[in-house]
């Protein structure tokens, strides 16, 4: 009886949220997350990737990524490779679209050649790491469908647990499950399930830092691949927001003079 009363009480006073389906709840959480991260206009950041093999051997990659936020359509990004040294100066220009294919160009410095490349390769490893291209593409709400699963704490932080199903073609995943901090609306952990439904990878986001009093960015991310026992660590440095970048910083002429 007590339980029944309690249930009645809860349904009366938080009727709105109870009326939502898990799908609507999931979308609501992600929309809020996306809203809180909107408005940064542009950013520049340095990224070190540390790739660890099963045997513990390490190799490193250093990149610099510029991003232009476009409201209502996908972001533009320019990635310049600094190491390994044999690919130094190689640059990658990408226009993300929510559901239509992304537009991508690669600049090969030895030939000074710009190549338009296919963006079908969503699930392939990025520079031999445990990150695939789709893991590093800018987030767009329409790329997934959502389902709120439950509440759960990670390291004492209350989280929403939301399932995300890719709606774009050629994803390597059947679904992802993300743990989202209820206070800050940031992702603390994501599990990736392969197309057969088996757990493939887990990503942890660490050392979040607040920029411009609004934008949370993890300083460190760790992707562990459970199937091949390799891992990749991302170390982000020197985040800059609102640098004043424009479309002109993301065109083929700029791509050709990227160093």
């Amino acid at each position, binding site marked *: 009886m007590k339980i029944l009363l309690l249930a009645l009480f809860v349904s009366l006073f938080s009727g709105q949220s109870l009326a939502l389906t898990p799908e609507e709840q999931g979308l609501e959480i992600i929309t809020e997350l996306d809203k809180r991260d909107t408005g940064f206009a542009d950013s520049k950041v340095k990224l070190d990737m540390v*790739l660890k*093999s099963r045997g513990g051997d390490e*190799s*490193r990659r250093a990149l610099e990524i510029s991003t232009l936020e476009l409201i209502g359509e996908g972001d533009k990004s320019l990635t310049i490779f*600094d*190491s*390994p*040294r*044999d*690919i*130094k100066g190689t640059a990658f220009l990408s226009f993300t679209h929510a559901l239509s*294919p992304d*537009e991508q160009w690669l600049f090969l410095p030895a*030939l*000074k*050649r*710009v*190549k*338009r*490349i*296919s963006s*079908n*390769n969503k*699930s*392939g*490893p990025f*520079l*031999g*790491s445990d990150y695939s291209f789709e893991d590093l593409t800018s987030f767009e709400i329409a790329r997934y469908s959502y389902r709120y699963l439950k509440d759960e704490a990670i390291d004492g932080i209350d989280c929403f647990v939301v399932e995300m199903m890719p709606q774009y073609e*050629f994803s*390597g995943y059947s679904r992802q499950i993300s743990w989202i901090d209820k206070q800050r609306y940031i992702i603390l952990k994501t599990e990736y399930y392969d197309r057969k439904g088996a757990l493939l990878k887990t990503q942890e986001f660490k050392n979040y830092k607040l920029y411009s009093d609004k934008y949370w960015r993890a300083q460190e991310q760790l992707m562990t691949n459970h199937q091949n026992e390799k891992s990749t660590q991302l170390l982000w440095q020197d985040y800059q927001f609102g640098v004043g970048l424009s479309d*002109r910083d993301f*065109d*083929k*002429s*700029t791509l050709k*003079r990227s*160093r």
Partner: protein
Amino acid sequence: MCTVLLANSSKLLAFEYSGTIGIESLGFINKPLADAQHNHYLSGVAELELIHEWDSGSQSLAFVPFYRYSQHDSKRSHFDIRELTWLKASDNWELRTGFRKVFWGVAESQHIIDIINQTDLVENTDTEDKLGQPMINLALIHDWGTLDLYFLTGFRERTFSGTEGRFRSPVAIDVDHPRFEENGAQRHLAYAARWSHNIGDWDLGLAHFYGTGREPTILVEQDASGNLSLIPYYPIINQTSIDIQATKGAWLWKLESLMRSGQGETFLAGTGGLEYTFYNLFDNLFDLGLVSEYLYDSRGKHAPIVFQDDILAALRFGFSDTQSTQILAGVIFDRGSNSKFYNIEASRRLGDSFKLEIEARFFSGILNTDPAFILRDDDHFRAELSYFF
């Protein structure tokens, strides 16, 4: 990143530097056509890149000197300034002045419309190495596309193997006595313009070039005592070209075509084809690309070039390993004869700073009327180990 500080009278200029040092082994399977030639050549190469950027990256100075030393072949041992450029970028234009390299084109088998720079042929028979070209290049960047205007201010002659080098006819090309349709300033100046744009899945380019052509006509001459000599002759040409790529999912459709006048009769040439890639085969082990192109030249059998009615079929393996292993294997075969050209290229990073590249090239069934006939005994392997810093 390493930084060099150069003391300047008024301020310190910070240059970033990087570069490559390599050692190459070039070995031939068959005995050479001429006694002076060798079966194996060792060679060393170095390239340094110095970059200085200022004005929040909108201005830069780049200096890229290059040197190759080759055993035996004195013509292959050469120095070049690949780049010595001052660049200024603004909202809707860029001005690039100095020695530079510019690439035009989309095809894989050959780069017929790529005309701004002279080919550094002694570097590699694949014609992808280029000599630094002095120029003033203004790019106008607008919604309707990018218009590049080129004022090319110095003609560079094509490099050819010397007497002791391979990849030549029994008589070496007399690079010391080239001839030109125009001499003086006319010889050295050329003008070009290119409009390029991308509309959705389509990347388009339309270009025109006027000036001393980069591809010489080889004149065969005999002196009074019967000695043959091969003279490179560079005519003034007009060349109009288009390049188109459509990127449709995993399909890339490519076309390059040109019309050239001033070098014999006006002719058309083209390279067109497709590339399809299967991604992440065998649990992300590798990507497999299938490439096929048709190579055409309207001069037909009279064309002074190797590919005039040929088909390329190639496989490109891009492995997903941390060492970026790549293999490209292909054959170009003539539709009218039995001649075939096989090409295998492979590369792999060793550790963090080294890279090994291996090439194997074979020629078979070449008729004595084919310009490639001089290469019939030049089947070879090339291995280069490079250190990057």
